[in-house]
């Protein structure tokens, strides 16, 4: 259970979850529930492949994923912030929209309702071999992760700093707790919430880009429920970047262990349940009540 391959796998499985849950966190910290993470992941995945397909450059795909994530979360922002509609309804609708739109466009662009052709993937980062044994050593340790894994890890730290060490983060957190207070201080609640929701789009879009670029392909509904797991991780992590990160690692780890345990005497279906049962047990036993931002879900 602790072999390197399993840990590696855990980190990679966790990466899209980490990105999506960080995204969800910015949205929810600003007071906007975001159950659209699933749809944003999917949209990001799709856009990243489209862009890579046409440009041949996976980094263009990364930017397209982020951009598409922002675009689709803009719908969520407009519907739930400007029009003050129910945030959960909006999220459900966006999930549907993402599902339909990505399949529809897959069909338009590639004539397939199932998947895209393979595209150029992202080269792993590594030091030049000419640097000698040191470079080789470093490469064997870190070289087997896709670049976006490092980006995700860095973003955990960045998110923590942004949320807890910048004026923006202070305002964002205050907006989720007590929007009136923020408003009376001359800070625009709408602007903060737009920022939160759009950031969630950017992060989850990036998560989608990772998901697709890592397999070099878009497959319909390839988010496969990860947006919901990310949401659970965010709650599990008590709306903190580091907490959410830890929860994602746990989920990723449980998933990897599950994959690694298969083929033993236990029926696969039971092994496949491990992450979910583990989550429930952990929630009851370790974590208990998590306190969401006080004004979450309430239009302002």
């Amino acid at each position, binding site marked *: 259970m602790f072999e390197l391959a399993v840990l590696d796998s855990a980190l990679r499985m966790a990466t899209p979850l980490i990105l999506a849950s960080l995204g969800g966190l910015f949205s929810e910290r600003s007071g906007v529930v975001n159950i659209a993470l699933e749809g944003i992941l999917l949209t990001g995945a799709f856009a990243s492949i489209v862009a890579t397909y046409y440009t041949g450059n996976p980094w263009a795909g990364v930017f397209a994923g982020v951009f598409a994530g922002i675009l689709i979360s803009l*719908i969520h922002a407009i*519907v739930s912030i400007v*029009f*003050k*509609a*129910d945030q*959960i*309804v*909006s999220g*459900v*609708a*966006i*999930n*549907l*929209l993402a*599902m*339909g*739109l990505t*399949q*529809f466009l897959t*069909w*338009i662009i590639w004539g397939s*309702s199932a998947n895209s052709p393979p595209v150029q993937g992202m080269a792993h980062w590594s030091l030049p071999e000419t640097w000698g044994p040191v470079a080789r050593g470093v490469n064997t340790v870190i070289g087997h992760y896709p670049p976006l894994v490092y980006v995700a890890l860095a973003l955990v730290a960045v998110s923590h700093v942004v949320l807890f060490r910048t004026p923006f983060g202070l305002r964002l957190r205050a907006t989720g707790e007590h929007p009136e207070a923020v408003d009376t201080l001359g800070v625009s609640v709408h602007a903060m919430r737009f920022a939160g929701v759009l950031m969630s789009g950017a992060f989850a879009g990036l998560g989608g880009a990772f998901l697709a670029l890592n397999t070099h392909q878009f497959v319909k509904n390839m988010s496969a*429920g990860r947006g*919901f*797991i990310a*949401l*659970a991780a965010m*709650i*599990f992590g008590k709306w903190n970047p580091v907490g959410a990160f830890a929860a994602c690692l746990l989920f990723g780890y449980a998933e990897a262990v599950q994959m690694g345990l298969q083929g033993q005497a236990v*029926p696969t*279906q*039971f092994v*496949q*349940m491990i*992450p*979910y*049962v583990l*989550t*429930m047990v952990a*929630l*009851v036993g370790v*974590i*208990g*009540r*998590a306190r969401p931002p006080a004004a979450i879900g309430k239009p302002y």
Partner: protein
Amino acid sequence: MNRFARLSQLLSPLVAVAAAFLVGGLVVTAIGENPFRIYAILFRGAFGSIDAIGLVLFNAVPLIFAGLAVAFAFRAGLFNIGGEGQLYVGAFVCTLAGLALGGLPAVLLIPLLILASAAGGAVWAAVPGLLKARFGVHEVINTIMMNFIAVGLTSYFIINMLREPGQMTPQTSEIALAGHLPRLAGPLSRIGIPLPQANPLNFSLVLALAAVWLAWYILYRTNLGYEIRAVGMNSQAAEYAGINVRRTIVLAMLLSGAFAGLVATNEVMGFRHRFLDNFSSGLGFMGIAVALLGKNTPLGVLLAALLFGVLNTGALEVDIFTDVPRELILVLQAITIILVVVGNEVFARRAAAREGRAAGVPLPATEPSREA
């Protein structure tokens, strides 16, 4: 509420649906198809014949149950994303009972299987309910997790223990004939509605309508409903009023799960007569959309489920007979939801503004009381 507000309550979803069709039409045009032709085919698929209408209803039935499940829990302030898992367990228990109790006559077996469906769903929903009531764990996470677990568990039992002998297909044998819900084609033909015999519409529709009524009745005519709504709107006040909040949460989840479990009456008792692994393909999630579109009221759920039934049924026709894929319908559904909620807000604000203008005068300040 004044008449304008009431009218707009009715009107706003209609306008939204129309607007969604407009947007969908633009998309269709953009891909070089004639939207009028596509929509004509869509509506032919949904309304073109008695058969088509029967299919609309048939497709609406599971959405009614799944939507009620979400809406009912919502009234207690709970967000039940676990409809999918609950309906699997409901169908599983129903199938088990239908296989085991073959000797019973229909008058006994049918009610028993209906109960079994509801009970299966209820038990599955009770777990997150209990965890919420007892440990305060957010039901959203647990219902999601329970979905995955339900799918895995039923899959295991269906494939490894209950699979129809000699079959590859991961499905059980047929349940006892006495447990089949009759199709509606026969009775309807007798009263002059020529629904084809092959149409899958069955008595589960009647159960769905009864469930809509029951949900409404429980919520608005019983103590329990009063308490559920009180807990949902203000659990502190409910506690103050002597309502056992934890118990109410568990009960609300139980009932919510029971509604989800009743999907089995259509799938297992009325249509396939067996449990097919992974039969649902996301009904539980569509239930969320249906409930929200129906504003979490039983009647709203019914209407929203019918709308989705129309779209799904028409989508099949479009998919078969044109080059426009069914995904367009998903897009259409999503746009409809977005526009309905936006429309509601816009209408509500306009109604409020009107009311203000109509009132025009300040409210009477607190009048001195007569006891003074």
